[in-house]
């Protein structure tokens, strides 16, 4: 995605006084995030650097008196813009503290959430615009080695599990019926029913439902050959996967698990191994790089 297009999308949601400065600011290459900190500054994050926006339309490394200061009203303005001035129609996003806007840009909120059921953000401390990047072709090796089988993608934080899953969705979804269970809209970044990323021509997206409900609903109504879902975490997910697998559907899922040793000790992984659903487990090490592919059929 072009940097200008990213900026154009973000500029729509910010107050005029920042807009005029940011329009003139050259954005750094590999920009991953722009954050607005209440009573602090506007920070730009790249893979390696953090910089702050100054009033001279530059990005400086140290925050000083020349840097642009964000007020809590500015944060409220951004929130209202992202909500399209309609808090009532964005309750789910407010409860989760995350919105998806055009081109898959994710807007994250931090601050004080209300207590009780249906927690909603009440005071905003910062707002981040996270720029998603799809890496087309990054899962081709995994696809070639495991195709036609149920697959579990494992890795620690920031190892690219979701990126790999998105590319597998594209690869499988271009010639088979797939359903992508995208609970938090992170994989497809769907906006107005249109996925922002290439997730395959014949991939159905279920967004906003919990993983287990999404899996059950997709078996009932969408008759997929493959179901793809992110971050299996509990026994409800396992039960849904067992039901899907019993219906002859292949599952491709991710799981937060840095190594095979760790995998063998996890109760959820043990449950999955007992049911013999997955044929392969792929372990990722860094930014989508494959550490090892384990044939689980041999290890049973």
């Amino acid at each position, binding site marked *: 995605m072009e940097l200008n297009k990213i900026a154009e999308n973000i500029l729509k949601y910010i107050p005029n006084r920042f807009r005029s400065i940011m329009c003139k600011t050259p954005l750094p290459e590999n920009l991953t995030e722009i954050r607005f900190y209440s009573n602090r500054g506007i920070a730009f994050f790249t893979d390696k650097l953090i910089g702050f926006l100054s009033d001279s339309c530059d990005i400086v490394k140290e925050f000083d008196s020349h840097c642009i200061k964000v007020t809590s009203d500015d944060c409220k303005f951004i929130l209202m813009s992202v909500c399209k001035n309609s*808090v009532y129609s964005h309750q789910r996003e407010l409860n989760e503290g995350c919105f998806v806007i055009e081109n898959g840009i994710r807007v994250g909120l931090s601050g004080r959430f209300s207590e009780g059921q249906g927690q909603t953000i009440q005071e905003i401390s910062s707002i981040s615009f996270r720029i998603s990047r799809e890496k087309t072709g990054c899962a081709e090796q995994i696809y070639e080695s495991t195709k036609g089988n149920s697959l579990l993608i494992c890795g620690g934080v920031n190892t690219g599990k979701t990126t790999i899953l998105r590319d597998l969705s594209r690869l499988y979804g271009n010639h088979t019926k797939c359903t992508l269970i995208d609970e938090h809209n992170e994989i497809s970044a769907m906006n107005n029913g249109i996925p922002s990323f290439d997730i395959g021509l014949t991939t159905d997206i279920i967004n906003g439902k919990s993983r287990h409900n999404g899996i059950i609903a997709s078996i009932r109504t969408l008759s997929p050959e493959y179901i793809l879902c992110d971050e299996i975490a509990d026994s409800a997910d396992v039960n849904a996967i067992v039901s899907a697998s019993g219906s002859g559907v292949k599952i491709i899922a991710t799981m937060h698990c840095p190594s095979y040793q760790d995998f063998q000790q996890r109760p959820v992984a043990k449950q999955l191994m007992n049911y013999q659903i997955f044929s392969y487990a792929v372990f990722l090490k860094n930014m989508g790089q494959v550490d090892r592919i384990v044939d689980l059929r041999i290890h049973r």
Partner: protein
Amino acid sequence: MIFKLTGVLFIVSACGFAGILKSKELYSRIRFCDNLIVFFQHFSALIRCSSYNLEEIIHCLDNDNLSFIKYFFTIDESVSFYDKWKKSVIENVYLSEEKEILLSVGKELGTTDIEGQTKLISYTIERLTQLRKTHSENYNRLGKVYRSTGFLFGFMLGIVII
């Protein structure tokens, strides 16, 4: 004499017409309240039953009876919703009580959840209904007075002239 009589006739009808106009002005305030009440009733229904955002709802409810809504869509996109609402109300609504109600509701529109919005709109409808009642009483009381006074003043002027 014929000229005098024609002149008197003209004066009587002009004064009578002025009285009718004044009385119609009172009636138009009732009509405006009615239109606002219907607008907010539909607004509330759309908030509860659709996933539309504020501007989409206002777009759906756009009609010729409420000029400030028409004006709303001509304002620059880059300003906030409330600034657009405020500008369109200030420049198009000339009745002070209605203006005050619309400005206060505009400040809160879209800022709370569905329950909060429906409560806000119910309260607004209640205020408008009360205002309509006052306008209606004024019309019943003063409408007739304006019309009769207009004609009577015309007759008196006519008699004086003759």
